[in-house]
């Protein structure tokens, strides 16, 4: 690392190079995480829809596949954010942790509510399906609204709004088309978000 004088051009190249490296190491952006969630939603919910259209696969298999994919996406998101935040101290780390915990807390709360209502047994299985898809899309939407506010990210906020519209839509279209709303509007929303963030990262914008 000798300190030979740099030309202006060399300096700018060095800045760009180190910037890319820093951004990659510090997690870059949400593109990869959104892509993981897009995969989980699109594959999981389209499989759940498929189980309603065929006799060969039992309905509960859809639930299992969705659960496995969601846990995998959660683990991936957790590992990526923990690795990106290594050695960083300060407000952005605190905000990130609070955001992560708010997902965990609200998911646990909603699980208790939805499981309790399901256990009453007064709703038909079709209605139970609507309860779950509607409330989970709503929770996802509200979390993204909060994320958009935290990081002053209009795209994230917009994704939240879109998820809330999808929540309403999934209940209105009824069972089993609600799975298609989850696949196309929910999973598709994540995929679109992932693509936009990916293009932004490539073009060097933050």
């Amino acid at each position, binding site marked *: 690392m000798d*300190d030979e004088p*740099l030309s*202006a051009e060399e*300096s700018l190249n*060095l800045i760009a190079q*180190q910037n890319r490296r*820093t951004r990659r190491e510090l997690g870059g952006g949400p593109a990869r995480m959104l892509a993981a969630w897009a995969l989980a939603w699109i594959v999981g919910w389209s499989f759940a829809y498929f189980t309603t259209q065929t006799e060969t696969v039992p309905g509960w298999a859809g639930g299992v596949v969705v659960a496995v994919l969601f846990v995998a996406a959660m683990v991936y998101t957790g590992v990526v954010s923990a690795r990106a935040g290594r*050695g*960083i101290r300060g*407000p952005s780390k605190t905000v990130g942790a609070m955001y992560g915990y708010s997902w965990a807390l609200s998911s646990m709360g909603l699980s208790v509510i939805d499981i309790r209502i399901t256990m009453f047994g007064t709703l038909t299985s079709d209605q139970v399906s609507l309860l779950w898809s509607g409330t989970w899309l709503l929770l996802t939407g509200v979390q993204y609204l909060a994320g958009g506010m935290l990081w002053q990210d209009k795209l994230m906020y917009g994704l939240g709004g879109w998820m809330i519209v999808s929540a309403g839509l999934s209940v209105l279209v009824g069972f089993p088309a609600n799975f298609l709303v989850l696949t196309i509007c929910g999973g598709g929303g994540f995929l679109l978000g992932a693509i936009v963030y990916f293009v932004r990262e490539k073009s060097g914008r933050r």
Partner: protein
Amino acid sequence: MSDPLPQLDPVIHAQARLRVTVALAGLHSADQITFPRLQQLLDMTAGNLSTHLRKLEDAEYVEITKAYEHRTPVTLVRLTAAGRAAFESYTKALHQLLDATGGD
């Protein structure tokens, strides 16, 4: 352009310190980074990084804090507001130089 050519800040205008500054500027302004993580972002030896950080600290571009976390000492590094401003005017000066010398 009739402006005289801008001077490049000698504290920043050296390969190693420029890279340190860029890496620190990539953090949010109130955030700090631990010494080992910064070292990993830059692929520098501890000795080399310390030397350059000291120069940046002398210029008050960088703030170095020693703290304890779970009884383990940690060194935390942060770009100061002055450091951030100096980096901004440095990059501005680079662009001006390039415009002036490189034609268009």
